[in-house]
């Protein structure tokens, strides 16, 4: 059999991370026109022209190159040192809890040789920051971290040159440290502020040699969250907390079911309420009022009739996805040597919701035909494009500002609330705030794709996998490729007809693909009566993956005797977005209650050189805890075009009591460039728990969530 698969699957771009993209990029000329110095005052400005940004974005996201795009004047980042020495760095990335505000500050501090406290980061403001495609795909650390390091290193060099000029000495006789330029022999010092005073120096740079990870000082150390104090005192304003002068509150009328057509609507009673304004534009109906309470009352007074169509329910989902796929399984597994054991299994993955604790929200304000929208999104420039299209405005006339946001997990790539608030604000001629209710968030946002995965495999008596055929229906192609060394393999992604709106999620389809693959690996090991760890290692050549697998197994004490009857151990591993992860889980299955409790998880993770160890540990633990929800009980139930469990009282997410004893082992590879860590650590938890349940009970569970109602013996 040929190895046709992977080329095909890898080219199938990550639909869910994509959607349309901006045609607009900031060019250097425009930057000059903006006259930064006029806005920011004098000082030193470093602009990083990022030559291969387009190429990277193409690889990362499957963009097509547009001929004539201004590659040479692409800007990756810019950094300004004011005349008082204050450092401000500008990046189009956004902070959604992954704590890049801290790790990027650290990166700048390290290259600039300045205290972290002197550095401010302006993030995700389309008028102030360079174009950025979005904060997703674990790209910030490998990409933006590097860009800011380059800009900061160039700024440091400029300051050294200024220092040499001022002190009338050779550049080589000076060092930069702690926000100062110091003369080695006399210890004469000039602070950055003294050097930038009176300057209006702009420097455009390309590549700069960077400090190897081994010499990092600020980076690589734990640094507390830079905006932490504002959060723990309640001062930080997330989008729902913003207020603008004269601001009104908006609400939007939602159909009772998906894909419904409006038959009639009566807004008369609502429009009579004091201070209420109703906007009707086709089937879009919204209200504005002086308080959110009044907006809610107005919405409740609207009578609308809708016509829905028949829609499938979650009970028919998996057949629907498989039968309705655009392509079907091309061939089944062919010739194996006769003594090989063969195994064919199907795995199902449910839709789950991101349920970010901050729901979608936006504040929109029109001033002189220009639109400003504050909104929590992972794609400020993408949302700006959406707004520009909807309102027929040039992108320069739309500004999107992203306050540090109450999480995203891949769920906030789109600008629904931004558009709705802007429509209402336009009609009301006043700023409007719109905050989605939890039920709206659970219903009208998008979900992690559901999927069906079919695996056919063969393994020889010595434990070597001899054939592997992997079909994924609808979930997506992230992490679809087996990391195991298998000569004979076929891997395909089949797009299907998704009954629900679906999109990015932490790790994308890698959670689904790893779940199916790593449970199947466990099944093969048991078929051969081999130890699941030994079986994996036998088929694994990737040294980095072997290293995390062995590290997790060692820390867990893999092979140890069971603590008590009903306990089970499971192991799983995987690689995604440049990271490597292995998890070992211990569960207790209570046969009487059909309940399962995960009591311990050891996770080993490696993503190259570590930038901020404590931040990284926080991300890994968070991914494991969040992953437990999708592994054990999270599932979106739907029927007749309605979500049946659109509330936290009906949709169970991990809580304090669900958290097992966690142990995290971080492997620091100072010889490798850092990769992102927001996503990869989530991929191994579900299969390790599924495998542990089998170990405890002998029941093989092949659907996510594993135990929405406790495990059932089939």
């Amino acid at each position, binding site marked *: 059999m040929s190895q046709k698969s992977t080329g095909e699957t890898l080219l199938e771009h990550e639909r869910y991370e994509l959607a349309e993209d901006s045609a607009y990029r900031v060019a250097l000329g425009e930057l000059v026109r903006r006259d930064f110095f006029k806005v920011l005052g004098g000082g030193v400005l470093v602009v990083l022209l990022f030559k291969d940004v387009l190429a990277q974005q193409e690889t990362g996201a499957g963009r097509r190159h547009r001929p004539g795009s201004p590659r040479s004047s692409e800007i990756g980042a810019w950094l300004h040192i004011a005349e008082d020495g204050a450092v401000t760095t500008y990046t189009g990335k956004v902070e959604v809890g992954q704590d890049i505000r801290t790790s990027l500050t650290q990166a700048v501090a390290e290259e600039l040789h300045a205290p972290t406290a002197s550095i401010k980061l302006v993030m995700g403001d389309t008028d102030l920051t360079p174009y950025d495609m979005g904060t997703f795909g674990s790209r910030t650390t490998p990409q933006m971290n590097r860009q800011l390091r380059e800009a900061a290193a160039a700024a440091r060099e400029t300051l050294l040159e200024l220092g040499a000029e001022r002190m009338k000495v050779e550049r080589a006789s000076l060092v930069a440290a702690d926000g100062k330029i110091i003369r080695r022999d006399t210890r004469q010092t000039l602070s950055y502020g003294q050097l930038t005073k009176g300057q209006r120096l702009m420097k455009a740079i390309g590549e700069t040699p960077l400090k190897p990870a081994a010499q990092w000082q600020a980076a690589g150390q734990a640094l507390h969250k830079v905006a*932490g104090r504002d959060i723990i005192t309640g001062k930080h304003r997330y989008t729902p907390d913003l207020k603008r002068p004269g601001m009104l509150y908006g609400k939007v009328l939602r159909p009772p079911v998906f894909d419904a057509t409006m038959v009639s609507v009566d807004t008369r009673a609502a429009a009579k309420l004091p201070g209420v304004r109703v906007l009707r534009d086709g089937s879009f109906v919204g209200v504005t009022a002086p308080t959110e309470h009044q907006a809610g009352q107005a919405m409740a007074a609207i009578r609308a009739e809708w016509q829905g169509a028949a829609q499938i329910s979650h009970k028919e989902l998996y057949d629907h996805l498989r039968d309705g796929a655009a392509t079907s399984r091309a061939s089944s597994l062919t010739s194996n040597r006769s003594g090989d054991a063969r195994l064919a299994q199907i795995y199902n993955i449910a839709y789950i919701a991101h349920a970010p604790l901050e729901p979608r929200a936006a504040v929109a304000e029109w001033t002189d035909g220009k639109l400003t929208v504050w909104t929590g999104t992972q794609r400020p420039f993408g949302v700006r494009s959406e707004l520009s299209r909807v309102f027929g405005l040039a992108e320069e006339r739309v500004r999107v500002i992203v306050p540090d946001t109450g999480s995203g997990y891949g769920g906030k790539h789109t600008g629904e609330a931004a558009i709705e608030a802007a429509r209402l604000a336009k009609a009301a001629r006043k700023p409007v705030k719109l905050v989605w209710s*939890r039920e709206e968030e659970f219903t009208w946002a998008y979900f992690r794709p559901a999927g069906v995965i079919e695996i056919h495999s063969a393994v020889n008596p010595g434990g070597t996998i001899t054939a592997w055929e992997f079909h994924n229906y609808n979930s997506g192609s992230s992490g679809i490729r087996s990391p195991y060394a298998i000569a004979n393999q076929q891997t395909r992604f089949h797009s299907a007809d998704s009954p629900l709106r679906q999109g990015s999620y932490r790790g994308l389809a890698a959670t689904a693909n790893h779940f199916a693959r790593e449970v199947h690996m466990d099944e093969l090991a048991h078929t051969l009566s081999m130890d699941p760890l030994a079986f994996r290692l036998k088929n694994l050549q990737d040294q980095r993956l072997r290293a995390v697998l062995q590290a997790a197994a060692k820390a867990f004490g893999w092979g140890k005797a069971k603590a008590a009857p009903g306990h089970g151990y499971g192991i799983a591993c995987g690689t995604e977005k440049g990271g490597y992860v292995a998890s070992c889980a211990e569960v207790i299955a209570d046969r009487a209650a059909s309940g399962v409790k995960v009591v311990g998880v050891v996770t080993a993770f490696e993503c190259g050189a570590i930038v901020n160890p404590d931040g990284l540990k926080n991300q890994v633990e968070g991914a494991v805890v969040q992953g437990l929800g999708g592994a054990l009980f999270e599932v979106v139930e739907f029927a007749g075009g309605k979500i049946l469990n659109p509330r936290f009282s009906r949709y169970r997410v991990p809580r304090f009591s669900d958290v097992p004893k966690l142990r995290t082992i971080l492997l620091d590879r100072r010889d490798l460039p850092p990769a992102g860590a927001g996503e990869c650590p989530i991929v191994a938890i579900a299969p390790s728990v599924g495998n542990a349940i089998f170990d405890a009970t002998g029941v093989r569970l092949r659907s996510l969530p594993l135990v929405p109602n406790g495990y059932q013996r089939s």
Partner: protein
Amino acid sequence: MRVVELQVNGTKHRIEVDGERSLLSVLRDELDLIGAKYGCGEGQCGACTVLVDGRAVRSCVTRANSVEGRPIVTIEGLEQRGRLHPLQQAFLALDALQCGYCTSGMILSGVALLEKNKQPTSAEIVRAMEGNICRCGTYPRIVAAVQQAAKQKQAGGRGGQ
């Protein structure tokens, strides 16, 4: 519409509002105390937690007129004369947050627990805080922060509210 009298963070406020409105919306929209967050509207996530008579209350399902005259503490009132509450300090020291949207509710639930139980075990913390959701999954750090604050208070840190 009538006047509702609320005593928040030691200050009396006379507010002309519909008393049936949730305490959460009155705190946020009338008093601009935005530390309490909307997360679910059904008292299931704990992001809106405030203290009433020292006890953790879900302000999204509490009517404003039901807590008239009773002392209310929001996250904004926890810091006293520039000094953070030991639990706020512990959250910072242990980085017990990621996106931070649940944090004020977590801290106030933790403060209420520490008022009742000076040295809670981790099992007691888990039980007391089960109604607060952190989607970023920082639960282990939050438990550790509550324990650290308990220790600090025991060792003579500032007493509670």
